[in-house]
C-alpha cells in the first residue's frame, strides 16, 4: 500500500516537472526541473527493486550530468531570449499533435502487451538474490563482461574527443607581448574567437 501511495505522489510530480521543463524560458529553470524529474525516476527505480540504480541515477544523472549542464549554461550565458518565431509554419502544433499520437500509441501498446493491471510475473526475489548489487554484478561481470570493457573504451574515446573538440586553436603570437594570457583585458580583441558572421 505504501508503494502505491508513493507511486501516485511521484508520478504526477515526475510528469509535471517534465512538462514544465518545456515551458521554461530560462534554461537554468529547465535544468532544475529536469533534476526534480530525475530524482522521481530514481525513486521509481527504488520502488521497482533496484537500489543500485537508484543511487547511480542520483549520483550520475542528478549530480554529475546536470552539473555539467548547468556549467555549460553558465558558460554560454543565461540571459538570452529564445527566438519564438517559427521557421516552419505550424511546426509547433504538428509537434504537439504527434506527441498526443505517440501517447495514444504507447498506451495502446501497454494495454495490448502487458495489460493495464498486469502484475509481476516473477517475484522480486530474483532481483535481489544476495543483494541487488551482487545480483547485478553477477550478470554484469558474467554475461556482459565484454560489453562492459567496450564501455570503458567508449568513455576514454569520448573524453579524448571532447578534449579535441573543446580545444582552442593556439593563438598566433602577437608582436606586442604574451599571447592571450589569463589576465587579458575584457576589451582586448580575442584572437581565439571568430568574428560574428
Amino acid at each position: 500500500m505504501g508503494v502505491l501511495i508513493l507511486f501516485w505522489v511521484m508520478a504526477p510530480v515526475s510528469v509535471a516537472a517534465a512538462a514544465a521543463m518545456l515551458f521554461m524560458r530560462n534554461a537554468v529553470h529547465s535544468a532544475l526541473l529536469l533534476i526534480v524529474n530525475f530524482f522521481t525516476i530514481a525513486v521509481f527505480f527504488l520502488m521497482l527493486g533496484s537500489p543500485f540504480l537508484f543511487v547511480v541515477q542520483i549520483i550520475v544523472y542528478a549530480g554529475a550530468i546536470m552539473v555539467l549542464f548547468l556549467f555549460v549554461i553558465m558558460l554560454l550565458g543565461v540571459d538570452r531570449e529564445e527566438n519564438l518565431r517559427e521557421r516552419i509554419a505550424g511546426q509547433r502544433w504538428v509537434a504537439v499533435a504527434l506527441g498526443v499520437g505517440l501517447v495514444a500509441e504507447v498506451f495502446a501498446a501497454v494495454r495490448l502487451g502487458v495489460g493495464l493491471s498486469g502484475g509481476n510475473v516473477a517475484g522480486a526475489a530474483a532481483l535481489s538474490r544476495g543483494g541487488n548489487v551482487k545480483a547485478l554484478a553477477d550478470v554484469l561481470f558474467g554475461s556482459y563482461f565484454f560489453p562492459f570493457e567496450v564501455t570503458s573504451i567508449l568513455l576514454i574515446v569520448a573524453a579524448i574527443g571532447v578534449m579535441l573538440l573543446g580545444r582552442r586553436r593556439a593563438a598566433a603570437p602577437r608582436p606586442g607581448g604574451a599571447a592571450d594570457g589569463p589576465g587579458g583585458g575584457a576589451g582586448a580583441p580575442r584572437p581565439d574567437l571568430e568574428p560574428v558572421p
Partner: protein
Amino acid sequence: MRTPIAWYLVVSGLLFTIGTVGVLVRRNALVIFMSVELQLNAANLALVAFARRWGSVTGQVLAFFSMTVAAAEVVVGLAIIVALYRKRRSADVDDASLLRW
C-alpha cells in the same frame, strides 16, 4: 497491493513523449539536449520496469549500460554545443543552418 507494472510503463511513455515534443518544439540547443536526456531516462524506466516484471536483472544491467553511454553522449554533445557557440555566438539551432539546402 502491488503496483501494476503497466503504470510505470505509461509514465515512461508520457515522459518519452514530453521529451520528443521538447526536441521538436524548442530552439535552444541546451534545452533540446535536456529533452533527449529525458527520453533516455524514460527508456531506462521502461527497462527497469520490465526487469521487475520478469524477475530478471538483465534489464537493470541494460539500464546501467544506457546510463554510461548517456554520460559519454552528454559530454560530447555539450562540447559540440560549446564549439558551435564559439563559432556562431548563439545556442539556437536555427542559426546552425549551414548544411540546409
